């Protein structure tokens, strides 16, 4: 078995580091190029070209933006409470990235005789012959996604500016109201799967040649969850916290330089994460035709599905205008919440009848 550290083979640690680095780099690159893709896609949807000048068809634009933001002057308002002001972007950014720890992005691959499940917080137990991952993965995801709001509220409050404060308050109200419906929409999935482990949920969707997706069994929950998720990450048409027509730039009005870039990255990282969660819960994760026989197809399917959902977010942004605040609250509390509750009841009755 070779060298063992704390009862686990050395290979376990190597694989773990490789997975963390791989997933982190993947998310970072996706975030960087999601900004480019968004500008390009929305540009073309508006019959424009989007970025064209930096590099071939503007391909170096994210790098140019990053360098520019990095060298910009750092401004901290004199009346701001400095520590909270500085720490807020980090609080917004970190939960967006660490949610990825429980998302399975592929099946089990074998490297040098050691089986590695392609999920960061998971390992393959050779004795039991199965993958062990965080068995409350979904709860972890929900917890982390609610942590993100602290960054925004703190940013709004610490800036000591009325626009920022209003943006922060709006975002907390919005995130709390939509988190309810999002969580309730997922409950319907648990009722079918009977487990909270994301790995198990993905495996349960592997039937019918990898197409037994929960999106087909729970179409309503899928739509509800995706819309609520978009609302929760403050993307258009629910981007009220940064509604520039009303609040200048919302919670990040007073931010500049790299701290502003962090909020921007958090927004896009959240989008990637939310799309990955939706993929995992409803679109069969890494499942797809032949994904079990050819393990390398797993990540390919996963990335393709995530990118499609990201494209959909951008498509939605190019299409739907921002909701009014009362419409947003109405939609959240009076439409999505009852509908998701009804969906749970219907699922429960259906399950009972089947058994």
């Amino acid at each position, binding site marked *: 078995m070779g060298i063992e550290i704390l009862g686990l083979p050395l290979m376990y640690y190597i694989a773990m580091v490789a997975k963390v680095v791989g997933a982190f780099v993947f998310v970072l690159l996706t975030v960087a190029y999601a900004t480019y893709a968004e500008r390009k*896609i929305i*540009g*073309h*949807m*508006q*019959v*424009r*070209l989007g970025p*064209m000048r930096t590099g071939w068809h503007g391909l170096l634009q994210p790098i140019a933006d990053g360098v520019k933001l990095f060298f910009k002057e750092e401004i901290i308002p004199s009346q701001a409470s400095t520590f909270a002001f500085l720490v807020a972007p980090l609080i917004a950014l970190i939960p967006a990235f660490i949610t990825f720890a429980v998302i399975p992005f592929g099946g089990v691959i074998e490297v040098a005789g050691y089986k590695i499940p392609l999920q960061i917080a998971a390992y393959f137990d050779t004795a039991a012959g199965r993958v062990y991952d965080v068995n409350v993965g979904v709860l972890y995801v929900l917890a982390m996604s609610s942590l993100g709001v602290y960054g925004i509220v703190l940013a709004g409050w610490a800036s000591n500016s009325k626009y920022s404060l209003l943006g922060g308050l709006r975002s907390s109200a919005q995130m709390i109201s939509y988190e309810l419906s999002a969580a309730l929409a997922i409950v319907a999935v648990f009722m079918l799967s009977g487990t909270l482990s994301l790995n198990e949920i993905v495996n349960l969707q592997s039937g019918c040649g990898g197409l037994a997706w929960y999106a087909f069994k729970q179409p309503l929950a899928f739509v509800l969850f995706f819309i609520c998720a978009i609302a929760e990450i403050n993307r258009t048409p629910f981007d009220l916290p940064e509604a520039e027509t009303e609040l200048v730039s919302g919670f990040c009005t007073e931010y500049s330089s790299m701290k502003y870039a962090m909020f921007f990255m958090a927004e896009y990282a959240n989008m990637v994460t939310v799309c990955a969660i939706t993929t995992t819960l409803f679109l069969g994760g890494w499942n797809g035709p032949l994904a079990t026989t050819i393990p390398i197809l797993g990540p390919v399917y996963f990335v393709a599905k995530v990118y499609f959902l990201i494209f959909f977010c951008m*498509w*939605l942004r*190019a*299409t*739907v205008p921002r909701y009014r605040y009362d*419409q947003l609250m*109405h*939609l959240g509390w*009076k*439409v999505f919440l009852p509908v998701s509750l009804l969906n749970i009841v219907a699922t429960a009755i259906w399950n009972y009848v089947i058994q």
Partner: protein
Amino acid sequence: MNPINTFVPIIKGLKITLEHLFKKPVTLQYPTERPKVAQRFRGLHALNVSHDKAKCVACYLCPTVCPAKCITVEAGEDANHDKYAARYEIDMLRCIFCGYCVEACPVDAIRMTGEFELANYSRKDFIYSKERLLEKK
């Protein structure tokens, strides 16, 4: 807010944006791609030349008709005792590019070109003298 009224327009909108995604963009990559200037575009003025000198006879019709009062003409007499414009200036900061000067001219001495990039760094550079107007052939 009933679901049909909420979702049908969104789906229609999504269809429209998707159709636009595959249309050819209308953007002109300006400094590298040049716009096609229409034949009758009213851009920078030019003084027409005949027999190596300006056709202008300094009749003062153009400063008279000019609604922006941007043309300054001073008449002179040449060796053949002909009247000619000793000074002919157009203040491009005042000019409204109406083309009345071209219409008024009895000897077809002034025309308007397709030149539209008239930006400059100082105010005095906007006053186009006779020499600068003649340069534009």
